[in-house]
């Protein structure tokens, strides 16, 4: 086994937390049951890793096997990457061909290899007709850097692909080209949508976030359900603004629905608008050029936070449509200009 491959596998295994190790190794399916049984997982991590490397050597692990392990690790730790969304389109009048996974993979790999000579491309198919692609980039003269790969998750029955953000941006156009051509599309466009939560991006892009699940609570009238948590049953307390509270609940429910919101960490608004002021003769109001300004909302769970603003009394309902349109418009990056 190549020294670089051994080092690569070692570093990957070291990243895996002990409580996930057996699960990930089983998913990798490279070391046999018998081999795994010989490992004492209760030892110190360094000893376990050494033993595992030894077993990989016995089985002559290749670069591709190592890359596959890296893919599986990333699949388990999706949130460590930030994902961008790309949308492809077919040309006018183009037929919808039957998708051939094998042909796609071959074509994709060939395009990259022809352009760069040194590139490691690995695939792992998952459910929902998705394929995870791992690309380690090199150049005409340098070997691929296995420690800064790019991941692409392509849903073959859709025109959408999700790509992990990386610092090596110069390869993005080539990657886009390879993806487009291999999947028999004509054009690729980056959407203004980005997050660490791949599942949430999927839910937004495929419009699957608004399913209300049937639970035993669904037969209770909405009013009782949502206000029951708020109103103290103590009869000594009176809520004067009960009508207003109901209005806010109703508007919030109409805007956000009953379902859990997809998880996003931020929304960014780039404003290029002229300054508007009630005061006459203000210096800024006389300015012809638009002011430039960037507003960023951050939260561990932005949409849930926005949903709770009006019921918490922190903002008026209804909220600005610029905030509430995020899942519907499938964007969390906005550019706002004067009309």
């Amino acid at each position, binding site marked *: 086994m190549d020294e670089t491959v051994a080092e690569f596998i070692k570093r990957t295994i070291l990243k895996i937390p002990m409580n996930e190790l057996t699960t990930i190794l089983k998913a990798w399916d490279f070391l046999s049951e018998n081999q795994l049984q010989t490992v004492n997982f209760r030892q110190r991590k360094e000893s376990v890793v050494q033993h595992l490397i030894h077993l990989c050597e016995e089985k002559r692990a290749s670069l591709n096997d190592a890359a596959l392990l890296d893919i599986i690790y990333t699949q388990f730790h999706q949130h460590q990457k930030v994902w961008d969304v790309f949308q492809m389109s077919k040309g006018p009048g183009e037929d919808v061909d039957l998708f051939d996974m094998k042909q796609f993979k071959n074509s994709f790999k060939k395009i990259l290899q022809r352009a760069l000579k040194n590139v490691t491309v690995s695939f792992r198919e998952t459910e929902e007709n998705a394929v995870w692609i791992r690309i380690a980039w090199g150049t005409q003269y340098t070997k691929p850097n296995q420690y800064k790969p790019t991941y692409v998750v392509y849903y073959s029955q859709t025109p959408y692909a999700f790509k992990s953000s990386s610092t090596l941006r110069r390869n993005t156009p080539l990657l886009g080209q390879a993806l487009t051509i291999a999947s028999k599309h004509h054009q690729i466009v980056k959407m203004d949508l980005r997050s660490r939560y791949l599942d949430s991006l999927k839910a937004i892009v495929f419009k699957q976030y608004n399913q209300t699940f049937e639970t035993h609570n669904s037969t209770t009238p909405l009013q009782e359900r949502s206000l029951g948590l*708020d109103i*103290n049953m*103590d009869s*000594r*307390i*009176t*809520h*004067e*603004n009960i*009508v*207003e*509270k109901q209005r806010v609940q109703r508007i919030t429910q109409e805007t956000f629905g009953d379902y859990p919101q997809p998880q996003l960490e931020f929304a960014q608004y780039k404003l290029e608008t002229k300054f508007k002021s009630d005061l006459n003769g203000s210096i800024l109001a006389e300015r012809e050029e638009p002011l430039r300004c960037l507003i960023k909302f951050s939260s561990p769970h932005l949409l849930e936070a926005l949903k709770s603003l009006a*019921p*918490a*009394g*922190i*903002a008026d309902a209804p909220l600005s449509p610029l905030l509430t349109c995020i899942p519907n418009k499938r964007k969390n990056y906005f550019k706002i200009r004067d009309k």
Partner: protein
Amino acid sequence: MMSVLRPLDKLPSLNTATILLVGTEDALLQQLADSMLKEDCASELKVHLAKSLPLPSSVNRPRIDLIVFVVNLHSKYSLQNTEESLRHVDASFFLGKVCFLATGAGQESHCSIHRHTVVKLAHTYQSPLLYCDLEVEGFRATMAQRLVRVLQICAGHVPGVSALNLLSLLRSSEGPSLEDL
């Protein structure tokens, strides 16, 4: 027609003391109400919670003995809401039956209202200003206790002490006046 709250427009109910908490954050008001109702009290306590004034018209509302405006120092919206609500309170309420409660002073980095602003507001309306981080259970319980005692006085349930007495007592123990600061 704008409705104004007046302190003596209704007859009091027997042994009942009613407090009105006004503030934008319902959860905080609810918590404070719960804390107050936990207190042992000879009077029958009633708590009304409102986001803002004027209140929706209602004949069934008991006489209000004490109004507490809860201002969240983290929110300019909260201050604005209080200032607008104050316009709907009759002047006679300010003879000891109104007080301001500022919450959030403990997290100074989150404060968007300067302490001086609420001090000035309370001074303008000649009413006491209390500080309490309502989100902290211990502080809230202590404040609840205090408010219950003040409420009983304002409802006239403490012989020999009236709301006005209490107000002048609090004023005389105040530090230097705003102008001297």
